[in-house]
């Protein structure tokens, strides 16, 4: 109770200082927020591209319906395969006519269907990397009724490399921005503690316990962190609205990310306070 009262009193006594530290925290978290939106959108684009990764196994015309059914079943049972669609020769022609209407006259003049039957294999997303796709393609090509397997190997390698680079960049940049934010928050809190060093000194003088001295500062850090986090969220949303639609089509972050960001702001505020106060308590 005392801690809460004192933390609120500190806001009342020095509103400018509080606003300043909340703004500092807000700005540093804004960078994190914008980075969050960017990395979320990059990851969505990559997801989208990856979801289109498909393995197509072209079947020999000689394959019997039983052999086809067996292969479909064998592939579908694999843990890395999500779905297997069997496309008959007729369906292949049908969709070719639909997709390539401009060649309709050519398709109509054909005496027989030149297209082979095929199996389209969709992978479970967790296995959808270059090695995983190659393993499934290899397994399919082992079947005697499979004539050829296509999966765009070169392109696949590039997409997955991009994913790795983007992932590593996200982690490194995320940590860096987080650390920068923590340092700035720490500086903001130290300014506020420095402004109240006399108070701390007197608390020591009259025999206040360390936790009693620490309490209000931790709460103050927590509140400032939440305040800064909320400001950063507002700022990020504003930038997102301005950019989205006009410059590029963007998606807003999922709610868990937003909640995580706010929680991180609050925690950063409190931790920065804890470290700053600890340093002060040790020297006092």
């Amino acid at each position, binding site marked *: 109770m005392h801690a809460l009262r004192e933390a609120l009193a500190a806001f009342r006594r020095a509103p400018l200082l509080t606003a300043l530290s909340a703004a500092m925290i807000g700005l540093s978290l804004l960078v994190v927020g914008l980075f969050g939106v960017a990395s979320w959108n990059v990851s969505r684009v990559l997801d989208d591209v990856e979801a289109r990764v498909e393995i197509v196994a072209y079947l020999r015309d000689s394959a019997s319906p039983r052999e086809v059914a067996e292969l479909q079943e064998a592939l579908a049972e694999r843990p890395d395969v999500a779905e297997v669609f069997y496309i008959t020769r007729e369906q292949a022609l049908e969709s070719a006519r639909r997709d390539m209407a401009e060649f309709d006259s050519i398709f109509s003049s054909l005496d027989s269907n030149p297209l082979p039957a095929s199996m389209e294999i969709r992978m479970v997303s967790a296995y959808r990397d270059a090695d995983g796709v190659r393993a499934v393609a290899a397994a399919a090509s082992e079947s005697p009724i499979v004539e050829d397997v296509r999966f765009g190997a070169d392109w696949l390698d590039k997409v997955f490399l991009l994913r790795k680079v983007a992932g590593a960049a996200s982690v490194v940049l995320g940590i860096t921005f987080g650390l920068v934010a923590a340092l700035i928050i720490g500086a903001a809190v130290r300014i506020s503690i420095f402004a109240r060093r006399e108070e701390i000194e007197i608390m*020591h003088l*009259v025999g206040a*316990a*360390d936790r009693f001295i620490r309490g209000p500062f931790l709460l103050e850090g927590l509140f400032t962190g939440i305040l800064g986090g909320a400001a950063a969220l507002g700022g990020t949303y504003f930038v997102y609205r301005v950019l989205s639609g006009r410059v590029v089509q963007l998606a807003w972050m999922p709610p868990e990310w937003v909640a995580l960001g706010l929680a991180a702001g609050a925690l950063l505020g409190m931790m920065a306070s804890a470290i700053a106060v600890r340093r002060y308590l040790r020297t006092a």
Partner: protein
Amino acid sequence: MIRFENVVKRYARATALDGVSFQLAKGDFCFLTGHSGAGKSTVLKLLHMAERPTSGDVRVSGYSASKVRRRDVARLRRKIGYVFQDFRLLQDRSAAQNVAFALEVTGVRRSEIRPRVAKLLGQVGLAAKSGALPSQLSGGEQQRVAVARALANDPLVLLADEPTGNLDERATRGIFDLFREINAAGTAIVLATHDLELVRRAAFARVLELDQGKVVFDSAERGAA
């Protein structure tokens, strides 16, 4: 209650205390005198456990400086009042709030604080100025607020570091009389000063004179001899 046993305190460049020993009992009134740099403030800091001796031991109210833990230091300090030459009041709070602060941060219940503050300010003769900010009070009055704050937790001993150093003759006399009253009520007082006039006026008190970190005069030893 207070015991210095062959205390040596060395800083990086100087020896502040060099083998100081003395004892004080409950209710004693003791002057620490000597020139600036003689070691008076160091004695007070050691009593307050803000510093630890380089060698020897300081014992205050059952706590030994060589064994005391950080948590216990806070507890011990509630039994020790401390008054400074520069008052050290929070400028943005009233006299009453300054006194209440010492009670709040030591966890005294809110309902108890208000009557205790009123009583303390009455005791130092400032009942009428409880709402005044330090800047609206004279030096003597500010020192009275500081004394009230130092007495807030009913200390066993009151440490005063040049408490009249910034005060005029009249205010000095007032503060000194206040110390005598507090002492008469049973609180021990250790008063560091180089104001020999003040010392001369209090024949009842024990006088320890320090010079270059050593006790060069102890009125108690002379009395015994």
